[in-house]
């Protein structure tokens, strides 16, 4: 259900949003595989905000992942589907304020759509590949993620404790006999 909602949100983001009407929606894979093709172009990019917003004066760095875990993290039960993949985006502090939840172990971050100019090797930012954002909106707010201990793991822990205690006792006994 969560995946379906995510897919719907992405579809809406790609096809129906005025902020991105003039710019093509592009994935991080397409950008990284053909950076020269997209360099200097206006694009729309959608991904999960991860980590944190790093504010540097009048600029904020955001990292947006558009990988298989953007809709559902591994801790929520997402099937493993490869590495994370995303893009770095430079936004103004005013726009960045809209993003409040960042993805990590305990959170699925806000799903964010940004529009702006893609730079394959941004001279302004030390040659980094980035997107200079002119419009941003949160498509789906992030949420806290629970990862409760699993029962079978508790049983395995007890078995490991017994194993360690048994071998520890055997070792102490053998050493005392030397």
């Amino acid at each position, binding site marked *: 259900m969560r995946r379906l909602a995510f897919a719907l949100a992405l579809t809406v983001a790609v096809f129906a949003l005025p902020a991105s009407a003039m710019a093509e929606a592009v994935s991080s894979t397409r950008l990284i595989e053909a950076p020269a093709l997209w360099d200097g172009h206006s694009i729309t990019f959608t991904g999960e905000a991860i980590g944190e917003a790093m504010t540097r004066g009048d600029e904020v760095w955001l990292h947006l992942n558009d990988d298989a875990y953007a809709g559902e993290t591994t801790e929520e039960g997402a099937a493993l589907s490869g590495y994370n993949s995303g893009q770095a985006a430079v936004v103004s502090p005013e726009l960045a304020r809209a993003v409040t939840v960042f993805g990590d172990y305990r959170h699925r971050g806000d799903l964010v759509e940004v529009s702006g100019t893609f730079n*394959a090797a941004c001279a302004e930012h030390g040659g980094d590949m980035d997107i200079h954002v002119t419009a941003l909106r949160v498509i789906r707010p992030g949420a806290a993620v629970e990862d409760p201990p699993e029962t079978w793991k508790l049983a395995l822990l007890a078995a490991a404790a017994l194993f360690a205690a048994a*071998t520890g006792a055997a070792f102490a*006994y053998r050493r005392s006999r030397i």
Partner: protein
Amino acid sequence: MMLRPTADDHRVIGLYTGKIVLGVGLLMVLPLVTALVFAEWDTAIDFGIGLLACFGVGFGLQAACVTTQELRRRHGLVIVSASWLLATVLGALPFYLSGHVSGYLDAMFDVMSGLTTTGLYLVQDLDHISNGMNMWRFVLTFAGGQGIIVIALTALFKGVGGGIYHLYSGEGKEDRLLPNVVQTARMIWVVSLGWLALGTTALTVSALALGQAPARAFLHGLWVFMGAFSTGGFAPQSFNTMWYHSLVFEVLCIIIFVAGSLNFAVHWAVWTGDRGELRRNVETRSFAVTLGLFALVTAIGLARAGVYPDALPFIRKSFYLVISGHTTTGFGTVYSRALVTQWGPLAMLGIIGAMVVGASSCSTAGGIKGIRVSIITKTFIEEIRRTLSPESAVISSRYHHLKDRTLRDTTVRSVMLITIAFLTMHALVTLAGVLSGYPLVDAAFDGVSAASNTGLSCGLVSPTMPGALKSIYVLAMWLGRMEFVAVFALFGWLWSVVKGQ
């Protein structure tokens, strides 16, 4: 005639391997505490299981192998190899239990990569991984950099028997800082922990200034230090060090990983007041020359590709990647695939060359090592001088490594043997990549990266790569870190069990 090992020989190996496995279990206390501090209960249970499994195996081996026989040379190297194998198998448990890897082979790949300070990884959804699991990745790489045997010698061994030196040297560290090997191991930790305090503070302050919250700034400062000083290359986020977008942070990383790539004996000489050693040592001189050479090749390749028209980004990106490759660190400030899609084959060849050579012996770094490259170069020059001189002339070469030394045939022979073994391994892992269907340059880049314990990738290494290739990379990382001898000693031991008399 090959002698079959006696039951007592097996007991000595089991006893000391058990002690070292116990040490690996103790290392898991750090991620366990981290998980508890951040209330990551599921992760804490994963490490509880891992720790108890290490204790169970460690105590079990010691209980089964009680002996009074002394540790000898023939045991030392086998113990090192067996310990690294067991550490990899048991250290993989928390990775596997976390649910972030596709199978146990992937989990072992990451542990071997961490312990050998390679930095390639197969863990998936890294950006949602727990702090406890991230701590384990960096503890592995930091401990592996100093050597798990060094840790055991520091904490668990009291004796100074003849075989202890072979435990120490089996991890690829031959220089003794002090006459006693156990004291040498402790001094390695004094140097490393001194750098840990300084480096973590500098990186944490920098991360705070870059906009990270205090707790994350500290964790990132600590982890990036561990990844840098151990020339490991693991980073807390999937973006690697591109995450920080900061020249200052990159310069700090370079200072730390260059320091980590220096011979511990050179560190010790500098710490004890002999600063001239840094300038005179043949390895630091060799490093400067080869760094210049490979930086030039990479720069030409990058200039042809025309990716960075401005001077500062051009220098910043190319120098960072080359020095990261040369120190066998593996930190990157570009996407892995950008090496193929933006940098091109010539720039990649420049970095491959840097990775092949590697950094200093008796350091955390991998590769052939500067001292071997220097000795081969000096031998080559000596032969040219001999050819051009009268037959009666006595030609000899000298070099400075901690003291002035004369180049001897026995030294050249052992250097050539290891160098040929490294070059053969690089060729074989590249061939394995090509046979698996990858382009030659990509196969050479990631294959050399694994075998030289670097960790840079152009995108070949991934969870979907063939299982056979993953296994070959695990073996290559292990062989590269052990510099072949200890691994061959283990195989020889197994062979003598079967065929010995």
